[in-house]
């Protein structure tokens, strides 16, 4: 297993996806603004998509299924980004801040 042949192994992609997922989780718990948390959520979704595509390429019998699923993940992520950002802007308009400490009275 040479290092230049790394792209032919399933484990490469799984490790990459795990690292991206961990980065997203760390960003999610450490960011203090809503936009920063949204960026981390996008990282987590990208990791999930890479996992789907890796298993689709290496193990699944029908390689179209994973691609279609990743396409649907993209559509849902775009919808999530649009909704999340409009909520961010609405919160900013009311609280003049998007810091999560300032909007803590939104919790039920």
């Amino acid at each position, binding site marked *: 297993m040479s*290092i230049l042949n790394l792209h032919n192994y399933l484990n490469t992609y*799984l*490790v990459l996806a795990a*690292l*991206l*997922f*961990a*980065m*997203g*989780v*760390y*960003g999610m718990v*450490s*960011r*203090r*603004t*809503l*936009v*920063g948390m*949204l*960026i*981390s959520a*996008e*990282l987590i979704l*990208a990791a999930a998509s*890479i996992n789907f*595509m890796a298993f689709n*390429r*290496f*193990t699944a*019998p*029908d390689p*179209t*299924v994973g*691609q*279609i699923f*990743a*396409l*649907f993940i*993209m*559509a*849902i*992520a*775009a*919808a999530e*980004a*649009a*909704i999340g*950002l*409009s*909520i961010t*802007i*609405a919160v*900013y*308009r009311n609280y003049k*801040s*998007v*810091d999560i*400490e*300032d909007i803590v009275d939104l919790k039920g």
Partner: protein
Amino acid sequence: MNTTDQISSGILGILTTDGLGGFADEAAGIIFLMMLATTLIGGIIAFNARQLIHAVQGLAVCFIGVAAIYYYLNSPFLAMMQMLIYVGAVCITISFAILLAAPEEDKKQGPPSVLSGPFGIITAGMIAFAMVSLALKTEFTIMPKVNMGDMKLIGSKLLTTYSMVFELVSIVLLIAIIGSLVIGRKGRSK
């Protein structure tokens, strides 16, 4: 290389059997390593940058790397969609939100969150360790491929087998557009 590998090697297989031989193989390996580094560095910038606008730029770099990874996973269609939707649309939308809401990470000098220091790093590290060790230890059964998974098949499957999901996703997108317009508009006339 058995037949499964030959079917599934797709684009890169065509590239390497095109008379270029070993050189194209090595070039593919080198470009893959570069794109792997691009993805990881972009991800590190995205979760670690102090300025949020830098974080969005890191996210765009990371998504370009992910698009290249999709290309190596035999899916040029998904790679193009990744560039269009994520790099072109999602990153730009997030930068608009940053411009409109002007969030500053350092503006308030409050006590930092408990999880933002070593605890968060340990948590994320443990998750990564668990997933990596699970991935490396498991033996995955490889099924024989039934088709090439090219763009034509994706299109026909989207409009036949998965047409219900396709329509549902378009309705979800429509509702998301209308909902974000309604939420964003509320309170503007004040």
